[in-house]
């Protein structure tokens, strides 16, 4: 093989791997990305039932209803709109009324959000980023999370 051919093989295989990677990424972007929405977004964008989204906001005061088999219902609000959520399972340590929450799942026909996960990675210093931004936009921001952003779960340590 000449030097030129060798170089061609090298460049050719590099391109092939790169194209493969880009192809994989584009496919994955189409299939596995979940959009974040506040309750107001859900109402305004008229999100279709069954579409997988993240819903985030505050857990409405007095809205948590627990029943058998770890079934729980609560409402997520951003002050303007409120969406009822149903979830079965253990809730994160810091799931509380009045605290920020992010849930992932889909709306059913009746407008009930069936969540299959409730995100746990926040404490009182770590408001989920999306929630904090929306609340800020809508003037509901009140705690000192902004001041203490350095202390988020794993974020602190690295």
């Amino acid at each position: 093989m000449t030097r030129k051919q060798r170089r061609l093989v090298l460049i050719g295989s590099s391109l092939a791997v790169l194209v493969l990677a880009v192809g994989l990424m584009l496919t994955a972007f189409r299939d596995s990305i979940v959009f974040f929405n506040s309750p107001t977004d859900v109402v305004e964008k008229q999100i279709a039932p069954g579409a997988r989204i993240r819903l985030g906001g505050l857990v409405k005061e007095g809205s948590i209803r627990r029943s058998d088999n770890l079934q729980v219902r609560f409402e997520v609000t951003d002050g303007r709109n409120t969406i009822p959520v149903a979830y079965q399972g253990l809730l994160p340590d810091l799931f509380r009324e009045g605290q920020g929450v992010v849930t992932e799942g889909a709306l059913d026909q009746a407008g009930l959000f069936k969540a299959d996960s409730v995100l746990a990675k926040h404490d009182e210093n770590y408001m989920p980023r999306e929630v904090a931004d929306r609340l800020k936009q809508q003037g509901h921001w009140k705690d000192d999370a902004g001041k203490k952003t350095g202390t988020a779960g794993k974020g602190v340590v690295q």
Partner: protein
Amino acid sequence: MTPEIGHYALVLAFALGIFQGCVPLYGAQRNDPVLMATAVPTAVAQFVFIGIAFAALTLAYVGSDFSVVNVFENSHSLKPLIYKISGVWGNHEGSMLLWVLILALFGALVAIFGGNLPLTLKANVLSVQSWIAVAFILFILATSNPFLRLVPTPAEGRDLNPLLQDPGLAIHPPLLYVGYVGLSISFSFAIAALIEGRIDAAWARWVRPWTLLAWIFLTLGIAMGSYWAYYTLGWGGWWFWDPVENASFMPWLIATALLHSAVVMEKRNALKIWTILLAILAFSLSLIGTFLVRSGVLTSVHAFATDPTRGVFILALLIVFIGGALALFAWRAPLLKQGGLFAPVSREGALVLNNLFLVTACLTVFVGTLYPLALEALTGEKISVGAPFFNATFGPLFLMLLLAVPFGPLLAWKRGDLPGVAQRLMAAAGVALVVMVATYAIAWGGPVLAPVMIGIAVFVIAGALTDFAERAGVGRVPLGTSVRRAAGLPRSAWGTMLAHLGLGLTLIGIVGETQFGSERIAEMKPGQTMAIAGYDFHFDGIAVRPGPNYRDQVATFTVRRGGDVIGVMAPSKRTFPARSTTRTEAALMARGFSQLYLSLGDVSASGTLAVRVYHKPLVLLIWLGTIVMVIGGTLSLTDRRLRVGAPKPARGKAAMQPAE
């Protein structure tokens, strides 16, 4: 008084750093040995001064001096001593101080152990290292001063985030930082080589041990962090593809590529420009990681927008260092002469393939991590890119890389014999196939892809052993001779074998945990029993136990298998009054390499307890594999040829083995 001494020492280190960043560099340009020699004492002194600053902050923590804002916000007088100390780096300011401390430590190590480095190279390296230190000390002094005082002095501190009061977290950041920041040395070497416009195989021999050292700690740090997340977050996940994790994983991928390409450069004098580029990229990704974690951009865009000083400052540092390095690279790299031709099918070719896959895999992580941020900044649309994305992109690329791993060490340099190598790997492939079929049969009706991945993992392990066994002459010579031969093989050969073997073990653990694990959630009253994967958990009761700065609600479970008691598990809910927060303490029980995992949910008023139980098959292999990799790396590091500062390859051409 102590905090002021610390602050002053930090300012002195800053001033010294400016000197160290200019004078040796100028000396190298002028070829003035006196000016160049100043690099050594200043590098050591810089480390000493930053050490004093760090010690001062540590003393403030140990003595619970709440007049220091940083101590007040992150400590508590009742906290156990170990967490008072680990609290030093459990916050933004302190962790940045640790960052520069380690940076200066590496500079000092090069100064002390680099006695055999060419004078100009050493001067340039230490100068470049010092620029980084100056920039980050300035960052601390200007935006994140840990020595600020508070008037009046509060009586009690606000305590460290309870999640961080854990032995794993006490040592995780220092490990990770040694890895992260250790890559600065290869960066400084790369920049120094570009400044000189000259690079040779000896350069690779100097750079490789430092990269290896950083890589070992980075591997340990990532594994440690993953295990910490596994047992503290209470839901059994060990990797979340969280941006903070990715921030440490990307430098690891590139550092791994760099280790392999440096082998080619050392042995064959080829891939010089590429190796330099990787050295720059590895540390650039460390810096990007620092930016992601430290700027607050991940936790809240809001924080970034209202208090942008830190973020903008680090962003500026990123642009200066990464942009500057890449510009210098574009300008000077063409000066470096390429050498060492090789056929595509050869050891070099295999290592290029390795690099290609590692770098592309890193690219997918990079895109997945930064795309959401970029999209939000540009359009305001918020998306989450989670595990499904990475599984679909990083996963296939890495599996392809793993398939190729056994071939690399068996190929000859310059021109390899692929059919021959394939033949020698027949046995390994056979073992892998048998295990694959066996897994498929045992887990009949289970996940389809899992047996294939187990097969690949076994292939990697058997392949690593094949190469090693061939060289020791297993089967060809009497057993005693081959054992002696194996013992006599260069430590770097042991290193390669163990590192690849560890990789295979980790993959088996990952597949076992993700594909064959099971989970149950239930509400239980004392006296009730729940079963999972052949184990019965009997809920005995719940008790309250006080701790130094917390209160534990401990639930006790008796675990039985087939009626026999095999142990007691006691998960708890830990309440920290200082922050009125609760943390779940999971209970773990090892069964061979598998684990049972028990964590608690809420205790209801009526006395029922929400319980989550997992059976995690082979999960311990995930971390055991990384430990084997680290042992491999450490053995390689102690190889004579690689000993830090070894002047010449002790075995010369006779030992042309990779030492990754």
